[in-house]
């Protein structure tokens, strides 16, 4: 009915219509009188697209199963990984380990790998939440500056690794009403990139400023910049810059998650 009405109003319209088990791709166009351009009827063409529609439906179904699998798998991996982390952190303080530099190095290395896997699993879980529309937005007042300072404590290791300096250009206090969990993921992913893609003796610059209708937060670094032509792609899933070398392990999911969460938060 909409197609007919739209065409009668002089516009072309296209729709997929299911009649019983058959799908039609239907085009409606106005028939116009040559001299006056008055619409005197509607002409339409229907093409049988049952095969491709069924194919599309099966792909969507597969995609859904894949997302569910990733969600379940990453969720199930989280608690054993947390257990391993806890155990390793306990080992790091064990007198036997502390007395043996070689063992200490090994434990440290396993701990680092464990953290990488935890990070990867978290990324997968965050991504699957975007896929399955399972994000929930529960805004409440948070103190951003405190949030940022706490967050940066988690990056001490990265900071030491490259001898980085963190420069704060921030007010003393600033409140924002936002979903704390989602916002934290966004800030974490941005901060992680700022630390990861940095250079020796570089800096991470945190800038927070209250504007008229919003709060500007910028987390900048002194690393290699993203190639200009590629900047439009950085929020795409699995996208990684062409100048990112093998030494930087990563999934290409961090900014994808951050931008999707921000969209979700509005």
């Amino acid at each position, binding site marked *: 009915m909409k197609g*007919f009405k739209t065409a009668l109003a002089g516009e072309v319209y296209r729709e997929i219509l299911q009649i019983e088990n058959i799908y039609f791709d239907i085009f409606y166009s106005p028939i116009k009188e040559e001299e006056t351009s008055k619409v005197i*009827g*509607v002409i339409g*063409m*229907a093409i049988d697209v049952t095969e491709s529609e069924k194919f599309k439906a099966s792909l969507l179904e597969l995609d859904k199963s894949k997302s569910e699998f990733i969600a379940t798998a990453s969720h199930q991996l989280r608690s054993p990984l947390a257990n391993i982390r806890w155990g390793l952190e306990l080992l790091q303080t064990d007198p036997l380990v502390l007395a043996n530099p070689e063992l200490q190095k090994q434990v440290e290395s396993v701990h680092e790998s464990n953290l990488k896997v935890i990070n990867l699993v978290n990324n997968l879980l965050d991504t699957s939440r975007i896929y399955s529309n399972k994000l929930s937005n529960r805004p409440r007042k948070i103190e951003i500056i405190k949030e940022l300072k706490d967050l940066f404590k988690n990056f001490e290791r990265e900071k030491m690794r490259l001898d980085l300096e963190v420069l704060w250009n921030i007010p003393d206090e600033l409140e924002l009403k936002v979903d704390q969990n989602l916002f934290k993921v966004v800030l974490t992913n941005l901060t992680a990139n700022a630390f990861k893609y940095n250079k020796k003796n570089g800096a991470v610059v945190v800038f927070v400023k209250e504007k008229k209708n919003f709060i500007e937060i910028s987390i900048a670094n002194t690393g290699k910049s993203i190639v200009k032509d590629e900047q439009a792609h950085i929020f795409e899933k699995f996208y990684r810059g062409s100048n990112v070398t093998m030494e930087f392990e990563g999934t290409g999911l961090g900014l994808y998650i951050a931008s999707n969460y921000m969209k979700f938060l509005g």
Partner: protein
Amino acid sequence: MRDVTDELRVKRLLAASEQRFRLVVENAQAIIFALSPDGKFILSEGKKLSLLGLKSS
């Protein structure tokens, strides 16, 4: 007596033209239809009408 050569030629051309369009429309692997402004079907053609158990009108 009247010379109808031109008249016949035009008629033949029109018939050939109609035949050509009919051939296209009737054999299209689709449904081609036209509706009047009050929503009545004034034409429905094409091989795929059979999918709906219909025949060309």
